[in-house]
Each structure stands twice: as C-alpha cells, then as structure tokens.
C-alpha cells in the first residue's frame, strides 16, 4: 500500500433506543479510486439521504471535496439507524479525514445535528436521553443544535455546546472557542414554574365528595373513575389533579423530559418541570395511545408518565383501544416489540376517566332521562369488567345547583390539598422503603396482608360488607388498599372502621349497582 493515501477518522454520535441513547461511531475513510461517496451500516432511508445533504452542505460551507473514494460506516453496523441526527457527525468525520479537524478533538465529543443544504444546523429529537446516556459512558463534550442545547445542558457535568452552522462546529473543534457551553439554572427553572401555575382547586365550587375522592386517589396513586351528568365538572376536576400532586423532583423531571425529548415535544424548554396532564381525544388509535409505529415513538401513556392520563367520555373510546391499557397499568411500562429490537417506555401514570351514566347523560333523573334500563346497561357494558377492575376509586359527580355555584364559601386551594397529599406520600415511601413499592395502589394481595392489618372490629365490618354487598375478592383487596391510603392521609398507622367505610363508598362499580 506504499504511496497510497490513507486517511481515516472517527467521530461519535448516538441514536435513540427506547428512552436511552445508544452510542454510534461514525467512521470515515478516504482512499484512492473512482470518486464515490458511499455510506454503509444498516441505514434507514433518511440516513441514506444524509449523503446528499452532507455533500452539498460541505460545498456551501466552503469545503471542496477532492475526487476520492469516501466511505462512511456507522457502527455498530447491525442496528438500524434512523433519523437525521447523523448528518452533522458524518460531515465532521469526513472533514476530519481530510484533515480540517484534528483527530484528537473528536475523541470524547459527541455530535448530533441535522444539516441544511446551506450548512445550517437544524434541531433533532431525543437530545436529552442521548446526552444523559453518553455522559454516563464517559463523554464530556456535546455538540448539539442550538435549539436543543438547553435540553442537554441540564445533565449534570455535561459541557453542551449549541451550534447553528457547520463552520461554527469546525472552528469549535479547532479550539477557536467563540462558543460557550450552554448553561441552565435548574433551581430557577423549578421556581419559575410555580409562578406559571394558574389552575387551582379553589375554582371548583362544591363537589366535596369528588374532591375528597380525588385527594385520596392522588395520595395513593389510585386510578379513579368519575361518573356524572354533563356539566357536573368532571373535566374541570380532572384538569386540576396535577396541581395537587407533589412537585416533581429533579430525577422525575429528568425521566419525563427524556420521553418528551424523544417525542420532540420539548419546545425549547430545558426540562419538563410540570406534572404531565394528557387528555387524548376518544378517537385516538391504539398505537397513538401506547406508542409504536414503524419507528417506535412513545405514546400518550408514556407522555403521561408520572402525571395524569385523563380519558374523558370513556365509553366513547374504541373498545380495543382502551383494553390495551390493562397491561401498562399493571407493569407501569409498555413494551413494544419490533423485528429489530424491543423498546420499553415507562408508563407510570395515574388513570383518570370520566363518563356519563347513560347515553343521554342524566340517569337516574327520570325527568330528563328516557333511556331504558337495558340502554343504560348497554352503555356501561362498553367498558369491560376487567378494565373497571383497574379503578380503585369510583365516584359519582353530582349535578351542580345554582346555590352551590353562587356560594361565597372559601374553597380549599390546591396548595393546601397538596400539603396533605405530600405527607401521605412520604408515609408510604417510608413504609415501603427498600421494596419495589412506592404507593398503596401497588400493593399485591400478599403485601396487603402485611401492611393492612385489621383489628377484630374492622375485620367483622369488612366481613359483613363482603357477604351482604356481594363483593368479589378483587373488590375486597381494592377496599383495603384505599382504606390504607385514607388512614395514611389521616396519619393513622391503624386502619379504623371509618376508613374502611369510606373505602367501601368509593369502591369501584359492580355492575349490579347500575340501573338495577
């Protein structure tokens, strides 16, 4: 090989895999032969198209490519590469191979970005999970599109440079430091968020029972079903649920932000600092709900991770669409299997659903409702019993009357409720320390025995209710879990009769209590 030109360089980039970043090394080789620009490494069509974007962007940025044979390889070569984030690293690797950039400056630098034909750099999705994973694998310097720079900068200890053009990157890598690493004040970010909060529970008049039920549901992360006539304030209540959830910790915020980053929903924000509230329309498809697609993307249930997934008009959803919720509700994550890989997205959401009692909405008010009992039953039957079983708490919201709407009585604010919820949550965290349980709703029948011990008096009440009210074993466990949360809210270690009674009132619907 004497006399032959031997130029090789290697840059690092990353792809999103599930909610993690996967390091991809971009190798460029320049050799003699017919002038050719070839890219290999199991590429998706948008990655193959990078060839044209890179060639023209290089030309428009003032670099003339000599007539050589250029081969680019993206490794590991057995994982399919998708997306446009490889444009920039490919261009950089080629420039390094031609000697425009010192090889050593690429060593611990991770580069991502999409190129425009004029050499500008456009934003990409998934910067946060990539930076987060790469940081753990020892990368220190990150070159990302300017619009995504704030996302990357929240990762502790990562030097993230936001760049706008190819030339800027070249000079940055040649150590002509005009670009400063992006800097985000996380503390300020969280404080600022509190100011923006503008919906509050104090705006909802009346609905004491529903508010109380929601408070309990949030405390123990129980799923809740609200039933009520149109205009009784179900949606209004649901929208305010995030406002009484404990504030996000940095780790939680990070977890949510990673998902939003992959979905491309960051909107130039550094972190998602508010509890998510997702309320998909009932025409949503299965894939949009759980995530998926040819290139898997997180769905609504993952976007609602650590927040609230609100399904308004539950019976109007396609039956098979809501039934897919069952497994994620148990596992707190959703697994999407594809031929090439299996992706796992977190889905630890609190399910809040609302529905009318019948198709006209006014049952049992016979002055307004003309539905026959069978019609009412059929309406309810659109939801399977197994899904109903996932709701620990079920509450009927009452039609508001004028007097209640006019009341001057001061309503409790979200802050007050949140304080109680936070205390109840802390009690739970402490109790279940070291186990894979965080909330009462996650208790299994075995752990219920351990943590929901009853005194003889309580035992006999529950036994009587079990027989007289025809409860199922499932309902029995749900009542205990909810009673545990109610006791926690009161700061009582022992579950008392009144806690059990209240839980019985909230027990999820048995079909026989409907239009009998």
């Amino acid at each position: 090989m004497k006399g032959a030109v031997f130029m090789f360089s290697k840059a690092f980039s990353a792809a999103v895999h599930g909610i993690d970043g996967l390091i991809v090394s971009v190798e460029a080789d320049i050799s003699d032969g017919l002038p050719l620009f070839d890219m290999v490494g199991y590429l998706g069509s948008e990655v193959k198209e990078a060839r044209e974007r890179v060639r023209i962007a290089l030309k428009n940025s003032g670099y003339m490519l000599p007539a050589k044979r250029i081969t680019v390889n993206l490794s590991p070569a057995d994982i399919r590469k998708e997306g446009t984030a490889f444009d920039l690293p490919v261009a950089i690797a080629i420039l390094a191979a031609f000697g425009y950039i010192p090889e050593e400056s690429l060593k611990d630098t991770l580069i991502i970005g999409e190129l425009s034909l004029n050499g500008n750099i456009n934003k990409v999705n998934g910067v946060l999970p990539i930076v987060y994973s790469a940081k753990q694998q020892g990368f220190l310097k990150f070159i990302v599109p300017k619009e995504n720079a704030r996302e990357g900068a929240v990762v502790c200890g990562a030097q993230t440079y936001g760049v706008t053009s190819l030339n800027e990157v070249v000079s940055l890598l040649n150590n002509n430091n005009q670009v400063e690493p992006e800097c985000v004040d996380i503390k300020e970010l969280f404080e600022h968020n509190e100011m923006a909060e503008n919906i509050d529970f104090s705006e909802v008049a009346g609905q004491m029972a529903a508010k109380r039920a929601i408070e309990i549901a949030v405390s123990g992360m129980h799923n809740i079903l609200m039933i009520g006539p149109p205009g009784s304030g179900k949606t209004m209540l649901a929208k305010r649920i995030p406002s009484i959830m404990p504030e996000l910790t940095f780790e939680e915020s990070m977890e949510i932000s990673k998902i939003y980053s992959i979905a491309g929903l960051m909107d130039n924000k550094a972190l998602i600092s508010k509890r998510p509230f997702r309320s998909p329309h009932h025409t949503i498809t299965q894939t949009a709900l759980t995530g998926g697609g040819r290139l898997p993307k997180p769905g609504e249930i993952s976007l609602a991770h650590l927040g609230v997934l609100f399904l308004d008009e539950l019976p109007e959803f396609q039956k098979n669409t809501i039934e897919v919720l069952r497994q994620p509700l148990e596992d707190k994550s959703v697994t999407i299997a594809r031929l090439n890989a299996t992706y796992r997205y977190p889905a630890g959401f609190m399910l809040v659903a609302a529905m009318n009692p019948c198709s006209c909405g006014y049952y049992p008010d016979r002055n307004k409702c003309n539905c026959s009992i069978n019609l009412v039953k059929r309406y309810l039957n659109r939801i399977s019993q197994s899904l109903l079983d996932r709701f620990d708490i079920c509450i009927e919201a009452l039609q508001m009357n004028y007097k209640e709407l006019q009341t001057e009585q001061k309503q409790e604010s979200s802050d007050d409720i949140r304080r109680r919820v936070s205390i109840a949550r802390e009690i739970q965290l402490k109790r279940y320390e070291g186990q894979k349980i965080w909330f009462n709703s996650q208790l299994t029948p075995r752990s219920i025995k351990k943590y929901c011990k009853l005194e003889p008096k309580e035992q006999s009440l529950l036994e009587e209710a079990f027989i007289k009210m025809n409860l199922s074993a499932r309902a029995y466990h749900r009542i205990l879990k909810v009673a545990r949360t109610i006791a926690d809210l009161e700061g009582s270690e022992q579950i008392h009769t009144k806690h059990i009674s209240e839980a019985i009132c909230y027990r999820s619907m048995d079909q026989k209590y409907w239009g009998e």
Partner: protein
Amino acid sequence: MKFEEYNYWLANLDKIGPVKIEKLIHYFEKAEHIFHASKNELMAYIMNGYDNRGKLTETDIDNLMNSRDKEKIKKNYDKLKNQGIYFVSKEDSRYPINLKNIYGAPFALYIKGKLPEEQKKKIAVIGARECSAYGKEMAKYLAGALAGEGIEIISGLARGIDSYAHEGALTACGVTYGVLGCGIDICYPKENINLYMEMQKDGGIISEYAPGTRPLAGHFPMRNRIISGLSDAVLVIEAKEKSGSLITVDMGLEQGKEIYALPGRATDRLSEGCNNLIKMGAKLVTTPKDILEDFIPNYGQKVVESKKNNKLLETKGKIVYACLSLEPKHIEEIALETNLPLDALMEQLVLLELQGFVRQAMKNYYVTRE
C-alpha cells in the same frame, strides 16, 4: 273429538277473533255444531246476518271449511298438554267470571300455572316501563304489602313497574299473575325469565295468544283488557301523560273497576298520568292501608307498622336516615343536609346499608328501604 278440542279449533281460526266467535257460538250454540255445519248452513248464517260487527265474510267461511283436519287439531291440542299449557275456553266452567262479562273477552286463554281464584281479591298493579327509583321502590313495596295480605297481584310482566310489582309480590310470598302480549311459551322481555318461572309456582302466566305468537306491538294494548278484566281494581304506580298504562285504566273504568293511583311531584313527568287520574277522581294511595281498607272489612282496626324505622341506635345514623327517602339522594346532598363531614357520613351510610335500612340505588345515590 272432545268438547275442548272443538273450542281449540275455533279459537285458532285465521282472521276470526273473539267478537266473531261470540256471534257464531250464539247462533250455533256449540263449537261442535260449527265444526260440522255445512257450507249452506254457514251461508244462511251470513244471510241472517245480525249487524255488521262480527259478520263473517265468504273468505272466513272458506277458511273455516278448509281447517277441519281432525288429526291435526288433535295433535296440536295434545302438544299443548305436553308443554304444560292449559287451554280454557269461554264455554268452559273454569273460565274466570270476571273476564266473561267484559266486551271482547278472549274466547280462549292459554295458561301456565293456574288461573286467579274467584273468591280471592285481585288488583292490577301497572305503570311505566322506564320508571324512576321512586316508582320501583313503591311498586315493590305496595305490591309486597298487598300480596302479604293475601291479595293477588296481576300485571303484564313487562319491564319496569310490572316486573317490580311481580317481584314485590313474590318476595312477600304472595300470589301473582302475569298476562302476556305474546304466546304463552315466550318470555318477553327475556331478562324476566326468573320471574316468569317463579310466578308459575303459586300463580300463573296467562295469554290469549296461541303458543309461538310473537310479541307484536299491537298485542300489548289488547292484553290490557285482560289485566283489568281479571282484577277487582287497578293501581297505577307511575305513568306519563300519554302512557299505555292509561289504556288499562280506561278499560278498567269501562269494566267498572276501582282505580287507585300513586301520586308524584307536580314536576315529575313520570307521575303526570297518575296525578291526572287523581284529579279525575282516582283514589290517592300513599300506603297499602289506603287499598286494604277498601278490600278487607274492618282493616282500619289493625295496627299498621310505622313507616319509618325507629330501631336505629346511634343518633348520627338517625340523622342520616331521616334525610333519606325513596328518591335517590347523592352523598353530597346528604352531607349538605346533615352537616356531617364526609368520612363520618360514609361510615354511617355503610352501617345503615349493612343493617338493611338503606340501599345504594346507584353509585353514590342512596334510598331508604321499605
């Protein structure tokens, strides 16, 4: 062929209903004579002709002549017996006298179980299919209380009030009869199959339609005349302004029966029919006593159980119970009225429910239990 078999043949002729049959029987005296009558005799009957009502046409006569297949009639009649269905025609001594005298009385009845007994008092309890919780509770309560006193409850085995009246009577171990608008072997609506089976044990199912007749809309107003005809009085639980139940009432009035009605609030559409009946002179019923005193001599002397239960021990429970009625009330409304905190209120409600004083009408709505 036997006497009843001739009647069975007559009852099942196409396009020949109770009025035509009555005229025929009046002329020929016996079904057997009609069966054996020659065409000339029948034509002569037409010529003699009475008035237009119940007049036979020539096609009717052809029908009549062509259906004289003894084998087939016998086979069908035996089949009825095998199915446990009784056939009682108007010519039969077992035919209820109450019914015999009404206009358009059915020529024949099909029965599963038994017919109402003549010496017993009978009352028709009727009302809306789409009833309220109030109507439901009251129908069960009144029918149960009346049946408990030995009064037989007659209704139409339809959805809503009819079913609850039957149910109330059965729970009180009383006797109840259902009059169907379809063939006796068809349970319509299907969900009433339990009632349908249960009623046959002590009471019975009655229909004027031959087995296999489908429940057509036109049949139901017709069977109402049997409901009122069999009974001594009619009690209307809930009826809208234009309700099918009012047809039964009209027929009952024609037949000279006493009408009772359960009042409702002026604004309740489901009670408009009842309230109008009361305006027109129907007797207002709030307790079973209102009916029983008309049915049973010296009933007033008996001690009537007080309506509200006083067996409750705890005062909180009393407060909660006092604010409940047969109208479903939401937890929130109860909380506002009693001024109890939610957790204490729920504790009381669960206790009351377990003790059997209240019932959850639907999720979070409570009613008292009578």
